C-alpha cells in the first residue's frame, strides 16, 4: 500500500500529464484548448464527489453524534470548494475560447456556480455559530438539505434546458461519443484525479483532526 503513493507520484501523474498535454489529438473546432477538457471535467466531478462525501459524513454525525464525522464533513467541503473554484475557472476560460464569452449562463455553468455558492454558504454558516455542538448540527442539516438540490442541478436542469455543453458523456442512447484515443485519455484523467482526491481527502481529514486535537489541548491547558 505504501508504494502505491510513489507509483502515483512518479508514474501515473507524469503519464497523465504527458497524455493530456502532448499526446492528445487536437479536436477540430476546439483546437489547442482540447487539453482543458482533461482537467475541467475531472475537477467538476470531484466537486460533486466531495459534496456527496461531505453529506454522507454529515448524516453520520446526525446519526451517531460523532464530532470526528463533523470535522471530516468540513474537510471534504473544503476540498469541494477548491474543486468547484477550479471547475468554474477552467470552464470559464474554456468558454471564452470556444463560445466567445467568459460566462454564458449555460445550465451546467449555472449548476457549478450554485454548487460553489452552496459551499461558501456552508462555511459562512459554520463561522456564524460559536457553540461546537450547535455548529456541527446546523451545518450537517444544511449540508444535507443543500445536497438534495444537487441531483436537480446536475441531472435535471441541464437536460430540461438547452445547453451549449456537448451531450452528457453518457447520453440517452447510452453511448460514449468520443474518439477512442480521447476517450481513453479522458478515462485515464478521471482515474488519476480521483486517485489524487483519495490522498487529498485523507490528508485534509487528518489535518482537520490534528488541528482539533491541538485546539482541545490548548483549551485544557487554559482551564488548568
Amino acid at each position, binding site marked *: 500500500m505504501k508504494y502505491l503513493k510513489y507509483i502515483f507520484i512518479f508514474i501515473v501523474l507524469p503519464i497523465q500529464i504527458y497524455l493530456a498535454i502532448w499526446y492528445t489529438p487536437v479536436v477540430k473546432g476546439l483546437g489547442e484548448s482540447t487539453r482543458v477538457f482533461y482537467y475541467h471535467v475531472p475537477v467538476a466531478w470531484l466537486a460533486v464527489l466531495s459534496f456527496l462525501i461531505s453529506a454522507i459524513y454529515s448524516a453520520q454525525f*446526525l446519526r451517531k453524534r460523532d464530532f470526528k464525522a463533523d470535522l471530516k464533513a468540513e474537510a471534504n467541503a473544503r476540498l469541494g470548494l477548491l474543486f468547484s473554484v477550479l471547475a468554474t475557472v477552467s470552464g470559464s476560460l474554456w468558454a471564452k475560447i470556444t463560445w466567445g464569452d467568459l460566462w454564458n449562463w449555460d445550465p451546467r455553468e*449555472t449548476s457549478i456556480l*450554485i*454548487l460553489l*455558492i*452552496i459551499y*461558501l*454558504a456552508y462555511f*459562512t*454558516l459554520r463561522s*456564524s*455559530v*460559536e457553540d461546537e*455542538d*450547535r455548529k456541527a*448540527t*446546523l451545518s*450537517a*442539516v*444544511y449540508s*444535507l*438539505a*443543500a445536497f*438534495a*438540490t444537487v441531483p*436537480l*442541478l446536475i441531472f*435535471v*436542469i441541464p437536460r*430540461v*434546458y438547452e445547453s451549449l455543453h456537448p451531450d452528457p458523456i453518457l447520453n440517452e442512447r447510452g453511448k460514449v461519443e468520443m474518439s477512442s484515443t480521447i476517450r481513453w485519455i479522458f478515462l485515464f484523467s478521471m482515474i488519476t484525479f480521483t486517485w489524487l482526491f483519495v490522498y487529498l481527502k485523507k490528508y485534509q481529514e487528518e489535518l482537520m483532526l490534528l488541528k482539533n486535537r491541538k485546539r482541545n489541548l490548548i483549551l485544557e491547558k487554559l482551564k488548568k
Partner: protein
Amino acid sequence: MFAWIKQVFSILEKDIRSEFRQKYAISGILMFAFVVVIAVSFALSGIKPGPRFGAILFWITVLFADLAGFAHSFIKEEEEQTALALKLCTEPAVIFWGKMLFNVFLATVLLVTIIPLSIIFLGLVTDHWLDFILFAFFASLAMTVGTTLIAAITAKASGRGPLFTILSFPVLLPVLIVAIKATYAILSGNTLMEQLNELITVISYIMLKGAIGHLLFEQVWQDASK
C-alpha cells in the same frame, strides 16, 4: 392523522394571530415588494420592460421579499424565548409544517399584492392570467418549502438577517431559474401546459424539499430548545 393535521393548523392559527398583533413580517414583505416595484418602475421611467425583463423583475422582487420575511416566525420564537414552550406542546414535524403553512400564507399575501402592482407599474400582460397565477403560486410554494428548514437553522445562528439570504439563495436558485423561464414563456403567449417541464421540476422540488425538511427539522429543533 386528523389530530396531527389539526395540530398543524393550530400552529398556523397561532402564528397568524401573533403576526396580526405586530404585523412585522407581513408589513416587511409587502413594503419591500412595494418599494422595489416602485423603484424599478421609476428607474425605467415609463419604459415597459417586456415579457423577458418583466418576468425577471417579477421573480427577483418575489424572491427578495420572501427572504425579507420568511425567517421571522422562527427568529421570533427564539427572541421571545417561546421555543421551549412550543417544543413541549407538540412534535417537531407538526411545528415544521405549521410554520411552513404560515410562510405559505405570507407568500400568498405577497402574490396577491405584487401581481396587481406589477400589472400597474411594470406593465405585465398576458392572455393566460390563470396559468400565470397558478404557476406563480407553485413556484412561490417551492420557495416557501425550500426555505422553511433554513429559517429554522438561521434562528439558531448569529448574524441572522444576512445569513438567511446567504443560505437560502443557492438553494432557491434552481426554482428562480425555472420560474423566470416559465413566466417569460407565459407572458409571451404560451400556456402552462406548454411549460409542463418547468411545472414538473417545481413540483419535484416541492416534494424533495418537503421530505428533507420533514426528516431533518427535528435535529435543528431539538438543538433549538437547549
